[in-house]
């Protein structure tokens, strides 16, 4: 009996010692990790907004470059975000809610979108998060659409666990470049054609706008996941933005 008690006591004591040590390590690095996460998220938002570090031309980047390879410094990220992006909360009215059936948005009363401004203060577009499913796990992205809601300004992936070298190439700049200038007007109609993947795209959508992007060879499941995520979530967010356009116009009229 005494032996069993000592065994339990030993396990309890050693557990307390190790948990306390881990709690200390966690506490001492928590703010740094939170800051890293925030910077990662903002880098993605800026990339999707087509806002690059000073002196960087996206067309000259290495095709395999990812967002975190861009030569940002934390101060510039925070400054540019404050200067060019404003967060707004849009109400989900009953009329809009009808069009959001099947999405998580239909379960909430409001949704947050980011408004992107140009240097003169005019609204350039609207940004929002996308969620989907890849081959191995969840996909997360941030998309920005133009102010007229017909074109995509850009998209960046914030979460993925796809196969390195195959599906994970969705994070590379060459793949994401095809989302710039992508036509999304078909997503305004229930029967309209959404975004499609093609095996070979000769020109980017900035040169010749279409509703197609280049697929990745050997990563069909991931590409399908990306297309499904973009089409499903964009339809919902476009409906939300259309339903709140008068509010957005009123709120940012003075800014324009």
């Amino acid at each position: 009996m005494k032996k069993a008690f000592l065994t339990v006591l030993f396990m309890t004591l050693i557990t307390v010692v190790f948990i306390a040590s881990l709690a200390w390590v966690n506490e001492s690095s928590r703010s740094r990790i939170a800051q890293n996460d925030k910077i990662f998220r903002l880098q993605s938002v800026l990339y999707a907004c087509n806002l690059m570090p000073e002196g960087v031309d996206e067309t000259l980047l290495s095709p395999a470059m990812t967002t975190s390879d861009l030569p940002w410094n934390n101060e510039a990220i925070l400054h540019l975000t404050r200067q060019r992006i404003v967060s707004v909360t849009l109400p989900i009215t009953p009329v809009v809610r009808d069009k959001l059936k099947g999405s998580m948005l239909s379960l909430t009363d409001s949704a947050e979108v980011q408004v992107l401004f140009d240097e003169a203060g005019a609204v350039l577009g609207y940004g929002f998060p996308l969620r989907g499913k890849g081959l191995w796990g969840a996909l997360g992205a941030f998309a920005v659409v133009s102010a007229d809601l017909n074109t995509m300004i850009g998209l960046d992936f914030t979460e993925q666990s796809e196969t390195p070298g195959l599906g994970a190439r969705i994070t590379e700049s060459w793949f994401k470049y095809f989302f710039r200038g992508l036509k999304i007007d078909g997503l305004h109609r229930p029967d309209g054609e959404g975004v499609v993947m093609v095996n070979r795209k000769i020109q980017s959508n900035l040169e010749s706008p279409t509703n197609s992007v280049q697929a990745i060879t050997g990563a069909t499941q991931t590409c399908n996941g990306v297309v499904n995520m973009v089409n499903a979530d964009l339809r919902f967010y476009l409906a939300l933005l259309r339903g709140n356009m008068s509010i957005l116009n009123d709120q940012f009229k003075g800014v324009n």
Partner: protein
Amino acid sequence: MATKAIDIVKDDLWKNNPVTVQILGICSTLAVTNIFMNTLIMGLGLTFVTAFSALVISLLRNIIPPRIRMMVQVLVISSFVVIVDISLKAYMPDISKALGPYVGLIITNCIIMGRMEAFAANNTPGPAFLDGIMSGIGYSWVLLVIAFIRELLGFGTILGMPVLDPLMRSLGASEGWVQWAFMIMAPGGFFMLASFIWIANSISAHKLAHGKH
């Protein structure tokens, strides 16, 4: 003492290598070896965890009640893994994201538990710590060789720098280096690992047949 240390080094690096001889740690061997840098960080993480877990287990070996020794070992190992995970998230966030769940899965790596049971629980702290380091290095060097070849053939790069593409173009191949997608995928890992084990065991068998140890 010195002889024992040399034996530990020889055993862990070659004669009783955790990957090629004991066939341990295979999941991560297949999962992370398509990019050299990820493999290097994984190897360093595993070496850190194995070494310090072995040190702690060895220090506590005379007071751990035998019936709960494995619970204590798992507690110690998982604590060091969490420290590695938090440190990567705080100081190397890019690599932390690239390695994803594999850092957490160091806890389940059989090499660590195996060394705790087979060595650290029965030896003094010095040799146990050395054994932990050498087991980690024994695991890492095998993975790094595999990763070097997989990244080179799969991506045409070494540490992310293009090597084969410019080489092929300079040799007159207009399309440059055609990436071997097979090498990046899990089957490429199986193929490379099996080839490596075959070569390593053939060398060992040859040495044994010729009386060299």
